[in-house]
């Protein structure tokens, strides 16, 4: 009883805090310092039609490299912790429904196409490497749900993942030699705003990020999928 009362009281307090924030909030009519700079000169500086992509890849490129590294670390730690044994024991599955199997066979190619479109057009339309990669991984979700026995070629995934990460850093270093600094995108000509082959390195870097994020998330999923239904008695023996 006292606990419920406390919870309700805390919720009311939090609501009161946020409500006072809401009351004080005014919609700013002008962009503040750096935002107005980005809005005014992104197209000129980088040739990217999508402001967010230009900020993520060029102006704040180092942060993006850090994010990709964190995701890589998470994925590799997961694969290490959830190691699977070579000899898979026989697993029985409820057969997935006809509807699901047909729909996934029909939809998966289009979902992959959408993911690739999102990261190739990162400098033109909303979205970019992270979003495209996540869409690619969600295609794998559909595949795994429709066919639980589907085996992911983790070797190919790891080759794509590591080579795209390596190329990403290499492209960043090329900015040091030919551009203004590390991860500068103006190594290639910026071209006309709004064309596919424009914005210097941004599309290339976003394609690499998309591949890297997509393979990392797919690897995470396949690791989680492969430990399902493993022999638990052996596991427990190890744990105790």
């Amino acid at each position, binding site marked *: 009883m006292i606990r419920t009362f406390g919870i309700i009281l805390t919720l009311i307090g939090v609501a009161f805090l946020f409500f006072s924030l809401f009351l004080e909030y005014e919609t700013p009519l002008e962009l503040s310092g750096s935002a107005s700079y980005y809005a005014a000169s992104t197209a000129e500086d980088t040739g990217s039609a999508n402001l967010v992509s230009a900020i993520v890849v060029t102006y704040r490129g180092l942060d993006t490299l850090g994010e990709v590294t964190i995701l890589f670390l998470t994925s590799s730690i997961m694969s290490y912790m959830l190691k699977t044994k070579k000899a898979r024991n026989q697993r029985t599955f409820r057969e997935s429904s006809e509807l699901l199997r047909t729909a996934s066979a029909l939809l998966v190619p289009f979902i992959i196409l959408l993911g690739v479109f999102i990261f190739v057009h990162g400098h033109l339309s909303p979205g970019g490497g992270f979003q495209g990669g*996540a869409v690619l*991984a969600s295609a794998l979700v559909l595949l795994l749900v429709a066919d639980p026995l589907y085996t992911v070629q983790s070797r190919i995934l790891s080759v794509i993942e590591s080579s795209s990460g390596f190329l990403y850093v290499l492209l960043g270093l090329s900015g040091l030699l030919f551009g203004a600094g590390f991860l500068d995108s103006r190594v290639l000509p910026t071209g006309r705003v709004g064309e596919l082959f424009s914005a210097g390195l941004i599309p290339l870097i976003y394609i690499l990020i998309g591949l890297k994020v997509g393979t990392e998330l797919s690897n995470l*999923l396949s690791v989680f999928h492969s430990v399902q239904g493993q022999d*638990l008695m052996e596991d427990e023996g190890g744990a105790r």
Partner: protein
Amino acid sequence: MIESILFIVLALLALASAVVAVISKNLVTSIISAGLVSLLASLLYLLMSAPDVAMTEAAIGSSLATIIFFYVLNRIRAKEDSRD
């Protein structure tokens, strides 16, 4: 006007499914309604003209996170079954 009505309806739905996720005794219901919160949040982001955030939320929050929760739940259940 229509936009703000839609906004309020979506926000209330998201709140309702969040409450369901917390108080439901069935874990499967909890996981699905937690995914629903993400899906509704991504619609809200879209209404607030943040399509990139909406894409990330829809793909990661509502699909990948939900499926990983299900994998973990499946694993926990198998463990509990083998103990009994």
